[in-house]
């Protein structure tokens, strides 16, 4: 086991200089995510064009794995529609939780750097927190949209919350 499998240069770089860091104001939907076990917490804000992500930011504080994962995620999903996001997340999740001796994931680009967590089961939650939070934000948006259709109007609560535990 080599620590460099987990703390690859891409991860250390995105931890030190997270991309798309901050908050979109106004935004179309948002969610808070937290991992009570280690105190990681982040907020994802989104601007949507239909179901396509026009812009995305995150802020918060957490370990290198959760910060880098959130940063890499925001780069990867910008411009994607929800179906593409779900397909990508399914592949990322598979990469994070594959057996330690499974072949490295293909076609994930920079996101493949996160695959090192498969050797550290305690850290998988750190890497998946941002994705859960993004999903919560999208689900929140969908609920609000459903509310609109039923004539109930927007949910006054701006922030959905998700916890990894």
């Amino acid at each position: 086991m080599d620590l460099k499998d987990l703390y690859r240069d891409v991860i250390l770089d995105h931890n030190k200089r997270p991309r798309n860091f901050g908050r979109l104001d106004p935004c179309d939907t948002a969610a808070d995510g937290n991992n009570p076990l280690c105190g990681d917490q982040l907020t994802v804000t989104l601007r949507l064009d239909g179901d396509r992500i026009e812009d995305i930011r995150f802020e918060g504080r957490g370990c290198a794995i959760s910060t880098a994962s959130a940063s890499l995620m925001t780069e990867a999903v910008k411009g994607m529609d929800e179906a593409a996001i779900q397909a990508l997340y399914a592949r990322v999740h598979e990469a994070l939780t594959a057996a330690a001796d499974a072949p490295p994931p293909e076609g994930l680009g920079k996101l493949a750097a996160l695959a090192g967590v498969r050797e550290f089961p305690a850290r998988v939650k750190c890497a998946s927190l941002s994705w859960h939070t993004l999903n919560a934000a999208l689900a929140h948006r969908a609920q609000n949209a459903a509310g609109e259709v039923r004539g109930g109007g927007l949910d006054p609560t701006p922030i959905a919350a998700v916890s990894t535990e």
Partner: protein
Amino acid sequence: MTPTASAPAYDVAKVRSQFPVLATTVRGKRLAFLDTAASAQRPLTVIEAVDHYERTSHANVHRGVYQLSQKATDAFEGAREILRRFIGAASSRELIFTRGTTESINLVAQSWGRRLGPGDEILITWMEHHANIVPWQMLCERTGATLKVAPIDRRGELDLEAFRALLTPRTRIASFIQISNALGTVLPVREMIAAAKAVGALTLVDGAQAISHQRIDVQSLGCDFYVFSGHKLYGPTGIGVLWGREALLREMPPWQGGGDMIRTVSFSGSTWNDLPWKFEAGTPHISGAIGLGAAVDWLETIGIDAVQAHEQSLLTQATAALREIPGLRLIGEAADKGPVISFVMDGVHPHDLGTILDAEGVAVRAGHHCAMPVMAFFDVPATARASFGCYSDEADIAQLVAALRHAHEVFN
């Protein structure tokens, strides 16, 4: 400590040889177990005592007339007597077996706490473990009593004057930790107990972190309740102790109802067993109690004073060594500390530290240590924490220091 004829040098290698787990490796590296504050390892004598009981003496206690049940009862009650002697309690009627510190505090909050009402006050400190916060919050919610919190300072010491000022004639109980699990601070419990008594309040001392590091005599302390867990005292998990003054325990209503805690049961009403069994409903953790008794017997052969001197020496060495590591900041720098060092490293989240240290065979706790208000006070999401026990040695510290230097390199 200077070795003398009457006090031979502490033989840490011999102590370590009693702990099978310390001979194991982690990811091919020597195990440096520095998480004793979360749970201590078990010596062979404890493992063997539990094993012997399971093989030769198990039956339910306080029930059968047959010999095996009597054997189990004798061993179980024998363990209670060992614990009684260990903490200097006046009577074994005052020593109630629980699942651990958390259950002990909940028992007091739910049984004794029934007498509280609106206007009554409960005083705790800012550095309590969640187990000494949440049961009181729940009690306040139920009864309308008020929870007050005594502040701490930047070094992680209690503001004793503020604690005194928060005590009022309405304070019914002051409940506080003896050694902070998150910061290592040793609280001035004697002064706190005296101050609480002066306003007529009861006191509960959470000894979870203190019990294995210094001699405890509940009568000389003068508190009303003292609680601790077996697994932090080299015993099994799932067993702990509530000590309380007999007169108080006598007045308190039973907590859980069931077998063993009753004298008679009929549909028109039931009557309660004597102390301590009134508070021990259901079949207890028999092997756990026996294992805990064996742990105390074993610890006494080494001598808890000798253990304390050894751990304090390690604490001093490790504190000095950690101060030399670039970017490392200690959280909790009280003048009087137990063998616990909490720290953070610039630019490295405690969880990343924990993983890097694990790769070097070093086991430390990384997280909020069930003390979120302490983390908030120091404005950190979490800390890494190294803690020592009777088996910790200088090689553990050297391994920790090397791993921390490596962590600093990886991230800078």
